[in-house]
C-alpha cells in the first residue's frame, strides 16, 4: 500500500528562488493495483517517486509506504521498495550475478537464501546465458533484466517505476510492461510514472495526471474518459493540464 498525504517538496535555487517541484500531492495505491503517474517532463513525477522511495525528504506532508512513514522510517521503507528508473544504472565492472547479489546482501539476505532467489529470478527472466558477463558488456535488454532482478531480489511489497522504458527499443519496452503486469498479478503495489500515453492505457488501474507538481486529475481510465468526454488518453491529458501543458507536451 502507498498513501501520500499532502506530500510537498520545495527546492531552493539561487537564481530561481523556491521551486515547488511537488505540491500537496495526495494519492493512494492498493496492493495488486498499478497507479500511473502521468506528466510532461519537469512535471514533478521523478521528485514525487523519489520522495516515496525516500531518496528525498519531503518539505512537508508525508507518505506511508508498505506501512512505514517515509519521514520516520526511511530505511524500513527502502527495505520494502523496489525502485527502477531510467537513471538507476548498473555497475559496469560487476557481472550480472555480482550486481544482483550485491543488492541482495545490502538488503541483509543470508547467502543461502540469496542463491535460491537468484536462481528463481534467473529462470524467470531467462538470465542464465549472461549471468557471469560484466554489465558493461550486456545489451540494453540484458541490462534491463539485470536491473529488474536487482529490484526484485529482496521480494519487495511495493514497486516504484520511474519512466522505466525511457530510451529502450520496442522489444525491451514490451518486456518491461509485461514485467510490471506480473508484479501486479503477484499482489504488489505498483506505482508507475511515464509520459507515454499508450503505456498508461495498457497498464494502469488508476491514473493521476501531474502538472507543475500538482495532481490535476485522478481516476480510473473509464472515469477520466467520462469526466473529460474523450476516449484518447492524449486528449484527456491535454484537457486536464490545460493550454500550458500543451506547450510542455510538445
Amino acid at each position: 500500500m502507498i498513501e501520500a498525504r499532502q506530500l510537498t517538496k520545495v527546492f531552493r535555487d539561487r537564481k530561481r528562488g523556491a521551486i515547488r517541484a511537488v505540491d500537496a500531492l495526495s494519492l493512494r495505491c492498493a496492493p495488486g493495483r498499478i497507479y500511473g503517474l502521468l506528466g510532461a517532463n519537469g512535471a514533478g513525477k521523478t521528485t514525487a517517486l523519489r520522495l516515496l522511495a525516500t531518496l528525498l525528504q519531503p518539505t512537508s506532508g508525508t507518505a506511508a509506504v508498505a506501512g512505514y512513514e517515509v519521514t520516520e522510517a526511511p530505511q524500513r521503507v527502502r527495505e520494502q521498495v523496489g525502485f527502477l528508473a531510467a537513471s538507476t544504472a548498473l555497475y559496469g565492472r560487476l557481472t550480472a550475478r555480482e550486481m544482483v547479489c550485491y543488492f541482495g546482501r545490502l538488503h541483509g539476505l543470508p547467502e543461502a537464501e540469496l542463491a535460491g532467489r537468484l536462481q528463481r529470478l534467473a529462470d524467470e527472466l531467462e538470465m542464465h546465458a549472461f549471468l557471469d558477463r560484466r554489465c558493461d558488456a550486456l545489451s540494453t535488454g540484458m541490462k534491463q533484466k539485470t536491473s529488474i532482478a536487482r529490484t526484485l531480489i529482496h521480494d519487495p511489497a511495493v514497486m516504484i517505476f520511474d519512466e522505466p522504458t525511457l530510451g529502450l527499443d520496442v522489444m525491451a519496452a514490451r518486456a518491461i510492461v509485461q514485467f510490471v503486469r506480473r508484479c501486479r498479478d503477484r499482489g504488489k503495489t505498483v506505482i508507475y510514472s511515464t509520459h507515454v500515453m499508450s503505456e498508461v492505457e495498457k497498464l494502469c488501474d488508476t491514473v493521476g495526471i501531474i502538472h507543475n507538481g500538482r495532481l490535476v486529475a485522478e481516476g480510473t481510465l473509464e472515469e477520466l474518459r467520462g469526466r473529460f468526454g474523450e476516449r484518447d488518453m492524449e486528449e484527456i491529458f491535454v484537457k486536464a493540464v490545460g493550454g500550458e501543458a500543451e506547450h510542455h507536451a510538445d
Partner: protein
Amino acid sequence: MPTEPTPPRTGRLWRNTLTIYAKELRDALRDRRTLISMIVVPTLVMPVIMLVAGTVATRIVRKAQAEASPIAILAGADSAAVVAELRADSRFRVVETPDYRGAIADKRIRAAVAIPAGFEGALARGEPATVTLYHYESELRSGMGVGALEDFFRQLRDRTVERRLVAQGLPAALVRPFAVKRENVAPPEKVGGNLVGGFIPYLIILLCFAGAMYPAMDLTAGEKERGTLETLLCSPVPRTAIVLGKFLTVLTASLTTMLCSFLSMAGSFVVGTRMLLGPGGAALPGHAMPAIDPLGVAGVVALIVPVAVLFSALLLGLSLLARTMKEAQSYVSPLVLVIILPAMMGMLPGVELDAKLALVPILNLSLACKEMLSGVWHWHYIALIFASTVVYAAAALAGAVALFRREAVLFRT
C-alpha cells in the same frame, strides 16, 4: 503505524560497510585506470625515473670531471711561465677567444683567468698581485673549471711562499704551524636521513594524495555521472555505511600506492647506489655509505596513516560535490598545490619541528619524518602530530558523512 525502532545497530552498520567495501575493492581492481595509478605507476615508473635520471646525472658529472676544462687565458707576454704551466696541466685545454665572457655564457669555455701585467715580475719582487677568475655561477661545468683554476693558483701560491721562506733560510712549515683534518662521526643512517629525509616524506605525502585522488572521484562524482549512486541509495543501507565503505576503499588505494612506491623506492635506492657508486659506496672515498634507519621508516609509515585518512576523507567529500568526473578534477587539482606547499616547506633547511608547527597538518608530518629518518625521536611532538592529525582526519570524515546526508549534494542537477 510502525516507525523505525532504533538507529541502525553497530553490527549491521559494519556488515553493510564491509559489503560495500568488498564490492568497491573488487570494482576498483577491475578498473585499469585505478590499477595503473595505484600499483603500476608507483611500483614501476618511479624507480625507472629515479634510475634513469640518476644514471644520466652521474654519467654527465663523471664525463664532465674526466674531460679537460676548456679555459681562456688573458695574459701578457710577461707571464709566459705561468701560461706554459697552465697549458701543460692536463686538467685544462686552453682555447683562444677574444670574447671570454660570451664564450663562458655560451658554454664554449668553462672559465677564464686574467693574469695581470707584470705578474711574474711582481711575484719575483714579492709585490702583491691579483689574478681574476671568470665563471658562470651555478653552472656545473663552469664551477668545475673555476675550481680547478683555483686549485692551480693555490698550489702556485704555496710554492711561491715556500720558495720565499727557503730564500730567507726559514722552514717551509713556518706558515703551517698545524694541520686541520675532518673526520665524519655521523652514523650512516644519520647521513642517509639528512640526505633523503626531506625528500622522502615529500614524495610519500604526494603519492599518498595521488593514490587517493582517482578512486575518490570515481566512487562519488563518477558514480553520479554513471547513475549508479542513485541505485545504491535505493538500498536500505544507512548513508554512514555507504560513506565508510567508499572511504575504506579510497584509503586502501592511498596506502597501497604509498606502500608500493615506498618498497620500490627502497629497492631502487639500494640497487641504484650499488650500480652508481659500486658496492660499499666505493665511489665516495672517505664517506660512509648512506643508510636509512629502519625504525624511522616504521615511524614514517605509522604517521602517514592518519594523513592518508585525512586525504581520503577530504577527497571523498570534495569529489561528492561535483556532478561529473571532469568537475571533480577541477575541484581536486588545486588541492594538490595546497598539499605540496607545506610538504615542500618541510624540506627547507632551518625549518625545525616545534609545538606550533606540530599542529600544522602535512608540514608537521614532513618535519617529523625528516627527524625520524635521521634517528631523532621527539616523542612529545610525535604524539602531538599523531593526535592532531587524527582529529583533523576524524573531522574530515565527519564532514564527508554529513555531505552524504545532504540531498542537495547527492542529487545536484
